[in-house]
């Protein structure tokens, strides 16, 4: 609700600075409220707080914390983005009002996803994120942004329609009398799962996961992802990549946990592991290409969603802990990376359509921020992604998936080399053109990089306690 209150307040803005001020005040308040909710969830990992349509549990709490941090960062850097953005069709105030309204509606819809206690409600909210974010993707109004926005809207909408068909199939299989929304509650599904028709439930499960996969961006139904994430405004790209994709993956995870009693574990494992390996295999070659910064980060998102799919598929405490750490670490690193693209195009305008070069010579704070993001995403210790990937691979060994784990490790190693190559190419070398920016730019870049480094180290420190924590134990045990 808090983000929606900010949207209503935007109408009172009289000039662009007012709109920016409403954003600067509203964002921390929204983030604090969401973080409180996250704290309640993590505190109640063993005994979730449930209502007729909402659920506040441990894993939801982790995802809410991620959404709070990424949303706050996106809102905080939005004024800097809008300062450099020119819109021919609307004035500065109107464009800010539209942008912030879209951003906060998107943020509100994202918050609702982990809170949904019901598969049907979760679908509705995910669909709502599509409508709000599609317009944001095309915000710049350029030809490529329109193309990216259109692809994103059509492909994810059709995918979610397929998922909805799976939900209808599941509902029909599980309910035999009058209409009941409660039939799609996570706990109800888990309770009736052992009594469901196995074949129909498996088909429904496959259809739901295939549909949700288009929204998560798992290969081979990922075609919209590189375009949308590279063409959207950087704060929106951060929300898409760091918050939306993992949050929709959470819904797929919950479907898996709820229906496990009805399904052959090897079948569900094969589906998630399949998506994971294919996503890794598709992403890695692009990490070796010389791509524009945001497009590179988009393919990195494809890689990391593949890692998350593997962790979900392996389904043991090690992999589960790895997934949670990966989601949190990826969120901070990716959010930092996209935020750095705002000053990057000011220093080096050509970096909007080709790989950046010589950033270390242009700006030390910017090279620090970009280097930190790349290092974290590559999984260089003490990055939490190093720990999470190690946990997930160990989880794969524990699940007797030796060959899969070996292939995944090889692909991750190749991905690491690709990111290292990007780091050397973008930070080193001769920059060519240069545009000066103010001293304040360096200060906020350094502050953001410092805060991100602190967050990444904090997440790494949790890695030692998470595998045997209540959160991992409860999640591995399934929905009871």
């Amino acid at each position: 609700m808090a983000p929606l209150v900010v949207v209503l307040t935007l109408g009172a803005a009289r000039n662009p600075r007012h709109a920016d001020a409403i954003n600067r005040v509203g964002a921390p308040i929204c983030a604090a409220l969401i973080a409180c909710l996250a704290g309640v969830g993590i505190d109640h990992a063993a005994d979730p707080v449930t209502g007729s349509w909402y659920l506040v549990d441990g894993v939801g709490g982790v995802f809410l914390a991620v959404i709070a941090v990424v949303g706050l960062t996106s809102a905080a850097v939005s004024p800097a983005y809008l300062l450099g953005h020119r819109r021919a069709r609307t004035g500065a105030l109107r464009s800010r009002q539209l942008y912030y309204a879209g951003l906060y509606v998107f943020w509100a819809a994202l918050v609702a996803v982990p809170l949904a206690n019901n598969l049907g409600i979760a679908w509705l909210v995910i669909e709502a994120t599509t409508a709000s974010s599609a317009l944001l993707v095309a915000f710049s109004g350029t030809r490529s942004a329109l193309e990216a926005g259109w692809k994103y809207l059509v492909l994810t909408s059709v995918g979610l329609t397929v998922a909805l068909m799976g939900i209808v199939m599941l509902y029909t299989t599980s309910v035999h009398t009058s209409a009941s929304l409660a039939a799609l509650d996570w706990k109800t599904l888990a309770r009736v799962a052992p009594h469901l028709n196995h074949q129909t439930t498996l088909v429904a499960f496959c259809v739901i996961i295939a549909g949700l996969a288009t929204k998560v961006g798992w290969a081979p139904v990922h075609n919209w992802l590189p375009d949308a994430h590279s063409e959207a405004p950087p704060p929106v790209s951060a929300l898409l990549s760091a918050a939306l994709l993992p949050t929709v993956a959470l819904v797929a995870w919950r479907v898996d946990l709820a229906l496990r009693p009805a399904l052959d574990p090897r079948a569900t494992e094969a589906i998630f592991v399949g998506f994971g390996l294919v996503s890794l295999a598709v992403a890695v070659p692009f990490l070796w290409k010389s791509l524009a910064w945001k497009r590179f980060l988009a393919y990195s998102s494809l890689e990391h969603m593949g890692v998350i799919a593997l962790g979900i598929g392996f389904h043991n405490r090690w992999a589960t802990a790895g997934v949670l750490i990966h989601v949190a670490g990826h969120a901070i690193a990716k959010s930092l990376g996209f935020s750095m693209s705002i000053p990057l195009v000011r220093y080096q305008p050509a970096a909007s359509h080709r790989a950046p070069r010589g950033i270390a010579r242009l700006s030390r704070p910017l090279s620090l921020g970009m280097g930190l993001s790349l290092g974290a995403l590559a999984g260089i210790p003490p990055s939490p992604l190093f720990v999470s990937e190690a946990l997930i691979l160990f989880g794969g060994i524990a699940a007797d998936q030796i060959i899969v784990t070996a292939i995944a490790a090889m692909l991750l190693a190749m991905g690491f080399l690709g990111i290292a190559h990007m780091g050397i190419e973008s930070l080193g070398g001769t920059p060519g053109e240069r545009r000066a920016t103010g001293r304040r730019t360096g200060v906020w870049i350094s502050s953001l990089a410092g805060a991100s480094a602190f967050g990444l180290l904090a997440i790494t420190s949790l890695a030692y306690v998470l595998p045997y924590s209540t959160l991992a134990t409860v999640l591995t045990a399934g929905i009871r």
Partner: protein
Amino acid sequence: MTTALTWIIVLLSLGCVVMRRRSIAVALVGIQSLCVATLAVFLVPSRPSEFIPAALTLVLRALVIATLLVIAIRRTRQTLPGGDETIPVIRLVVAGAIVAALVALVPAFGLESHLAEHGAVALIATGLALLVTRRATLFQVVALLVAENGIALAAVNVRGGLPIVIELGVAFDLVLVVTVAMVFHDRIFDVFGTTDTHALQELRD
């Protein structure tokens, strides 16, 4: 009556595959939506009272979406909006193949009639076929609507009906998505001068 309506609904979706003109395809999908709504209204006497708002929602949804599409067509008049597409017979064969494959793969899942199950799957398959074979942006929206009509056909035939919250929510979401799609459709026509999605090919690696 329900059998005849179900067959009409399926045949209308195949009509969208072969029709060249956007206005006719929009008319067909509009009639299809109204047929699904009519089916729901026919089933009201044999359903709990909560089904009435669901049936009315389908009627309202059909009318609102048809209106949006008609406005979109009038604002973006053009010849050959889809450019040089594949010939209708090939499109029909592709659609038929996808429909046959999915109907064969999907087992019975408990709707009140097998015909409704096959019809719902056929509509989803036809929607996917439309997405693959048609180029104009409006046809891609029609593809989404055909698939959603498949969901609606299944929902109408669920014993006891779907929960009203889901029915209302899906209808609202669909209207929202179609509205956003129409905004894109307008902007694409303004910027590219055409609604042929083959013009949207700038982003490559």
